[in-house]
């Protein structure tokens, strides 16, 4: 073992080098990572960047236009819009990331089970995914969010219930085709238990595709979180959120358009960053 290690290190280094080279040759991935890194940095450093607290009201200075004091002006309750914008990035990105964990794990696992076992397991899981897909995504999201109650908890519950489908469908198709491959058959012939085959052999092969889907889905989920906020059944005030900001600025769209445009731009920005990463990753793994 000890003698093999230096060799291994060399191989790893060269692999990393190759990966880096490939990233340079993939501008979409590179730009996606840069954009996202900026966004995350701004979100994390929000208290340092902005001197204002996002829910600090000032009735004496409502609806002020952008100035050196308030970079994006103030909203209807005299709160600093820029502070709200970057604190909202914290809220929305955090919820987006957390809300993806369970659907991702469950979806990938169920997809593998369905694809690998086929037969009744496949039939059952396909039936479930097809049933969900028969309804418009937002209809389900709004109904579930409404029933489970507004707020952060409701968002987690909603996406736990509906988020896994997209992964299950993609992974199921992939697993079904991999199942017929010889190396899986070989593993089975060697007497490996099914669960081990799924976790050790199938999982590493479906994961890259699942991660690509994850990036795209995160963008969709972010928009869904914002939409729920916009409709008033998402994140509850006073926590800042891009969706509620868009809706609160709407009455002033013709006179103070930046109130809605700024959070709208933030959503588009985050969405573009995530999709670029998703596209870049797909290209990266496809070229190999």
């Amino acid at each position, binding site marked *: 073992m000890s003698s093999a290690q230096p060799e291994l290190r060399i191989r790893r280094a060269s692999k990393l080098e190759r990966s880096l080279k490939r990233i340079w040759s993939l501008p979409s991935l590179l730009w996606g990572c840069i954009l996202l890194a900026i966004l995350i940095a701004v979100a994390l450093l929000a208290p340092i960047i902005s001197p204002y607290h996002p829910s600090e009201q000032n009735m004496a200075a409502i609806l002020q236009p952008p100035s050196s004091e308030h970079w994006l002006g103030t909203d209807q309750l005299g709160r600093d819009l820029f502070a709200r914008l970057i604190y909202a990035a914290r809220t929305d990105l955090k919820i987006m990331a957390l809300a993806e964990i369970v659907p991702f794990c469950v979806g990938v696992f169920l997809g593998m089970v369905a694809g690998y076992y086929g037969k009744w397991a496949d039939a059952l899981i396909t039936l479930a995914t097809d049933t969900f897909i028969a309804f418009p995504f937002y209809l389900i999201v709004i109904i579930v969010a409404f029933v489970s109650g507004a707020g952060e908890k409701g968002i987690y519950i909603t996406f736990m219930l509906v988020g896994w489908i997209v992964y299950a469908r993609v992974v199921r198709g992939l697993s079904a085709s991999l199942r017929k491959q010889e190396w899986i058959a070989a593993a089975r012939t060697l007497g490996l238990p099914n669960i081990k085959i799924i976790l050790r052999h199938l999982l590493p092969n479906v994961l890259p595709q699942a991660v690509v889907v994850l990036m795209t889905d995160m963008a969709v989920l972010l928009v869904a979180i914002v939409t729920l906020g916009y409709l*008033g059944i998402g994140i509850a005030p006073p926590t800042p959120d891009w969706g509620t900001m868009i809706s609160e600025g709407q009455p*002033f769209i013709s006179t103070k358009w930046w109130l809605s445009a700024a959070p709208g731009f933030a959503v588009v920005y985050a969405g573009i960053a995530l999709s670029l990463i998703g596209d870049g990753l797909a290209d990266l793994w496809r070229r190999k």
Partner: protein
Amino acid sequence: MSTLAARLHKPLRAGSLIAILAIALAGCSGSNNNANSSPSESQSPASSSASASASNSASEPSAAGGTFTYARPASVTSLDLHNQITANNAFAIDKVFEPLVAFDSEGKIVDWLAKSHEISPDGLTYTFVLRDGLKFSNGQEVKAEDAVFSLQRHLDVGGPLAIAAKVESLTAQDAHTLVIKLKEPYTPFISELSNFSNGILPKDFGGVSEEEFFKNPVGTGPFVVKQWDPAGDLTFAKNAYYWQEGKPYIDELVYKLVADDNQAINQLKAGEVDAIESVALQNVGELKQSQDIAVVANGSWVTEQLFFNTLDEHFSDVHVRRALALALDRDGLTNAVTFGYGKAATSLLPPAIPYNANDKVKALGFDTEAAKAELAKSKFPDGFSTKLLIASGNNARAQEAQIIQAAGKSIGIDIHIESVEFAAFRDRFFKYNFSAMINSGQADSPEANSILAFQTDPEGFSKSYWTHYTNDEVTKLLYEGQKTPDGDKRGEIYVQLQQILADEVPYIPLYYPDILKGVRSSVEGLVVLPNNSVRFQDVRLKG
């Protein structure tokens, strides 16, 4: 990994989806913004006529005639004056039927179909003399027996705005004199008679069936129904026999159904409509940007309030309620949500109602330190966590809730805002299923008793506006006020009553919103009434 050949999505699909959605979201209209502010909310709108802001620019003669189009958020579904209460119907009924007395902008009662009225010193006998030559829109003369029939039907039907006075008899003393006798004095009676529901119609519905009559009603109002789609528009023609000579100046009045607020604003800007009925406070800025549009405002009979459920674990404690009142900056709140079209409230009655006491009642002013001291006296000196119920889709209420939330936080009360859709909201507070809520109280007529009875009578239909606030002293004053004749003594009773309410805070009056109408600059003489209705008989259209 080499097996990953399938490209499952197109580049930037999610990105472009987001862009489209973001644009759609921002462009999408807030059509609900004003849906809840219709005055039909649990209290009723009422109608009658009063000159509120007669802006008729006098002598300059404008060309008479023309069609006036008025955009409204809901269609007229019924014109049966005794069975209707909601704004969509009330403000069409008051164009067709008129009462014996009406009110002016200060809430003073003026004679309308009656040329004079007299109340006996014991407050039991009311005598009305009809105007000379008064005619219905079919040309028939109006007689005292028509008034007897109209009021008798209202007594029989009851309805949502039932006559509260104990009426002993209605008599046509002669062809033009009506005498009403009461069993016991009830001072608000004369003011309640100015309600649209006490309009005068021909005896026996002019000989047709009830159903037929209200499809094509005959009244004394300035307009008659010409064409009516209960799910759409209503076109009125001018009443050729109207008693105010030469009026109305316009030939036709169209109530156009435009359900969406933003669409109504756009149609006003484009000149497709001459005025819009429903203008949310936050949209005033947008309207005023346009040179062709004027915003006409008038004081209302509405008081926006924060209500406490006095059966609630925390809000049953008077110190808690007082503490929150002290922590709240009402002037700041009013400034933030009304944009100058509202007045901060200290007492329950709005300024457009007689006996309002905004300057006499000492309310709990904004003082965070006093608020903390007050909370320390309560059963919850270290604060607590509670919920504030609001109806969703109302921008002003959502903002108010956040201000109240911040006020609570400043003294250690953690307030969670619960925003539910309107039907659920109503359902919740009717069942006392709330701790605190934001809602508004509205008078039916320019009469202090209207709001006070609704909000202080624990045995009444409204259970002190669902706060279940019970105070024997208040109830005693309320009944005293109903029996005391108009004058200083009655005024003193109402100051005393409102002071107790300000001290015990079953609800915090927040502000008195103005009534706002968006009107094309080419319109002259539109009169906005404090009950949210509009008078069209003086309207002229320029060029």
